[in-house]
């Protein structure tokens, strides 16, 4: 099965081609949907088979390369298009194809009736193709191919409803913003790749990482490489300073937000940092940068999510915040913890987004949570699964989120110090708070959706009838809820599981062994400390949940009073710290004005056009002069001939 791993990319590509080329003619939505989903389902089965096969292999031989063809052969650079099937890529592949399949099935129901139905599935399949190339590639170039491919698909899918308005602009503008910000990160990634090739003379993972572990290379070189790679990761995974595209990406359909901006594409940065763990481990200064940025991003995004009123925006900022946790883990050396959180987050965040999509679908495209309320009795299945996911993300013990988040907080304390743990714990409290705020405002309390200051002419036009979603949409919700509950048990920390150890960590350990060897060993901390901290963070989370329920379920007036009292802070958070405005003024406007005034009007028109026209006019003028030699009078020709004779004689004399 391992040798058939190329099917996991080939099948989605075929799905893209079939749906893309013939989808318009296949009028039947069911067929398009089945083609789109079946390819991913089959890919999942192939990955599962490869996984089972790899588990049966001894630990030393769990890393296998499947070579497809020789891709680039330029001078000393030889890049083969090959897939690396090892523990890390299998884990990522399972997540991508598994969650991807569920979202495909969900989309059949969600996008029902849309006139671009076939286009949607074509793009989704293309995305899975690119993402699988990203996680399976055995060298940086295939990874970059997938990296760019998912960026492209993100653009296509965010701007899917190209004729719709979105906030102050259009969906196309949001898509462009995502692409451009991604590109800035990609530039950093490219620089990192160039440096890697210069330093290690190869771009193949195995070769680069073995050389990184053994060659004596300056720490500053590692630092530079790691920094550039991390810049690429901040672009793709929406960290400070390149996170501004993710909230705008909510302009796309909700399954897109679930798949791309929760479970898979945004995790590509985490995967890349994880894959290049040895490089990061060799540059401790950059590891600190990664951890600090992750932490700050987590805190900042959580604070913004506290006051947002669009259901998808809250979830978007929550995604940014949770990604910050993953980078925090990577930054303190707990690479397997970051991948563990990646997995659990994929489950519950995809579930949250799909549930939000279900709510939006049932509320006829209303997304403002201030207009929800009391939906629990209209959409029981949606409510139940959403609630489970909220418990998971808040770190309630027993569910998957608890185990993964706790692993991260513990590693932060053990390797980063008390401050890291404290800020992480505060962020966890904020997470629990805004998630339960979201649940309360949406599902509990009074119904607020009949014409409360509606945007239209009169309210009664918008008398909505919320309803539960069809089975095609609720069954994936249920499956994801199940995974959100049990998914964490593969990563039970050592203190609970005794001699089994942390299964997940042990599974991934061979990947990170070289990196962990380079890092200073984790300080010795006692089990008591670990349990104490765990109890503290659980207590914090539970208190935040209680507080949120108290305010938003029973007494919403408190929220109003607080927001009025701290009006400045409230405004700051509501406007996301004005980061977009700052970027617009400091970066976008100068670049645009500079291009317009200088590059276009002066450089292009005067200089380049001038050069081209100048050559033409030079030829014209000189030919105008030279043509006067043709006088038509034979005597002037004779003069020229005599001059020639004179020259020949001169040459003759000189050569004597």
């Amino acid at each position: 099965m391992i040798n058939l791993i190329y099917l996991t990319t080939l099948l989605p590509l075929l799905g893209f081609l079939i749906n893309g080329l013939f989808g318009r003619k296949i009028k039947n939505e069911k067929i398009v949907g089945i083609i789109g989903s079946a390819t991913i389902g089959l890919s999942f089965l192939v990955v599962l088979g490869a996984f089972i096969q790899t588990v049966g292999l001894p630990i030393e031989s769990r890393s296998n390369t499947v070579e497809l063809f020789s891709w680039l052969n330029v001078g000393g650079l030889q890049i083969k298009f090959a897939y690396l099937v090892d523990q890390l890529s299998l884990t990522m592949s399972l997540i991508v194809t598994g969650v991807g399949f569920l979202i495909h099935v969900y989309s059949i129901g969600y996008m029902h009736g849309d006139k671009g139905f076939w286009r949607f599935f074509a793009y989704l399949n293309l995305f899975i193709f690119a993402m699988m190339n990203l996680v399976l590639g055995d060298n940086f170039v295939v990874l970059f191919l997938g990296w760019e491919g998912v960026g492209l698909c993100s653009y296509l899918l965010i701007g899917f409803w190209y004729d719709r308005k979105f906030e102050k602009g259009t969906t196309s503008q949001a898509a462009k913003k995502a692409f451009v910000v991604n590109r800035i990160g990609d530039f950093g990634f490219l620089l990192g790749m160039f440096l890697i090739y210069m330093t290690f003379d190869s771009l193949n993972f195995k070769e680069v990482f073995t050389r990184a572990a053994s060659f004596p290379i300056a720490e500053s070189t590692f630092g530079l490489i790691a920094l550039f790679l991390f810049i690429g990761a901040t672009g793709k995974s929406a960290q400070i300073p390149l996170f501004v595209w993710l909230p705008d990406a909510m302009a796309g359909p909700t399954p897109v937000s679930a798949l791309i901006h929760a479970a898979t594409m945004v995790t590509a940065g985490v995967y890349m940092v994880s894959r290049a763990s040895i490089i990061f481990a060799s540059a401790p200064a950059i590891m600190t940068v990664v951890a600090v940025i992750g932490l700050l991003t987590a805190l900042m995004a959580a604070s913004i999510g506290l006051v947002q009123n669009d259901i998808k925006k809250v979830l978007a900022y929550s995604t940014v915040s949770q990604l910050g946790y993953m980078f925090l883990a990577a930054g303190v050396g707990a690479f397997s913890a970051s991948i563990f959180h990646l997995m659990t987050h994929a489950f519950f965040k995809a579930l949250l987004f799909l549930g939000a999509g279900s709510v939006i679908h049932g509320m006829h495209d209303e997304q403002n949570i201030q207009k929800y309320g009391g939906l629990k009795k209209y959409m029981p299945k949606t409510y139940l699964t959403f609630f489970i996911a909220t418990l998971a993300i808040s770190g309630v013990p027993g569910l998957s989120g608890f185990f993964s988040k706790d692993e991260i907080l513990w590693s932060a304390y053990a390797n980063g110090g008390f401050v890291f743990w404290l800020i992480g714990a505060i962020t966890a409290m904020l997470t629990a708070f805004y998630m339960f705020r979201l649940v309360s405002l949406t599902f509990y309390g009074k119904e607020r959706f009949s014409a409360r200051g509606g945007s239209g002419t009169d309210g009664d036009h918008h008398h909505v009838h919320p309803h539960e979603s069809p089975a095609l949409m609720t069954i994936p919700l249920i499956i994801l809820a199940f995974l959100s509950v049990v998914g964490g048990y593969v990563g039970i920390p050592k203190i609970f599981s005794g001699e089994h150890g942390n299964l997940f960590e042990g599974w991934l350990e061979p990947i990170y062994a070289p990196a962990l060897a380079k890092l200073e060993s984790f300080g010795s901390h006692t089990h008591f400390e670990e349990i104490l901290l765990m109890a503290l963070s659980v207590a914090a989370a539970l208190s935040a949940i209680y507080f949120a329920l108290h305010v938003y379920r029973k007494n919403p007036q408190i929220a109003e009073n607080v927001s009025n009292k701290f009006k400045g802070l409230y405004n700051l958070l509501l406007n996301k710290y004005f980061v977009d405005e700052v970027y617009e003024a400091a970066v976008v406007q100068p670049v645009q004005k500079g291009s317009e005034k200088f590059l276009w009007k002066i450089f292009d028109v005067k200089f380049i056009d001038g050069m081209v026209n100048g050559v033409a006019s030079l030829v014209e003028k000189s030919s105008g002069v030279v043509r006067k030699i043709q006088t038509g009078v034979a005597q002037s020709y004779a003069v020229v001939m005599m001059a020639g004779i004179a020259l020949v004689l001169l040459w003759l004399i000189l050569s004597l």
Partner: protein
Amino acid sequence: MSSIPMEYYLILSAFMFCVGVAGVLIRRNAIVVFMCIELMLNSANLTLVTFSSYLGNSIGQVFVFFVMTVAAAEAAVGLAIIIAIFRNKKTVNIDEINIFKW
């Protein structure tokens, strides 16, 4: 012969040749141009005869014979052409015979 160095004759011949060239390039009357050409031919004749005399070989003078023949033929035909042109253009001024000018 023995007292006059050969170079004197050759220099005189070169001088006459260059004067002829200057005349060809400067004068505008077609017939005068022809006469300058005859001057050039004569300077060549002088060179040939000089060498023939100083080498004691009569082949040079045979060559002069033929040069004169050709010069005569050329003068006759050239003047006939000038007469024909004069009939059409009523002038022998070279500057005005410029139908080749584009």
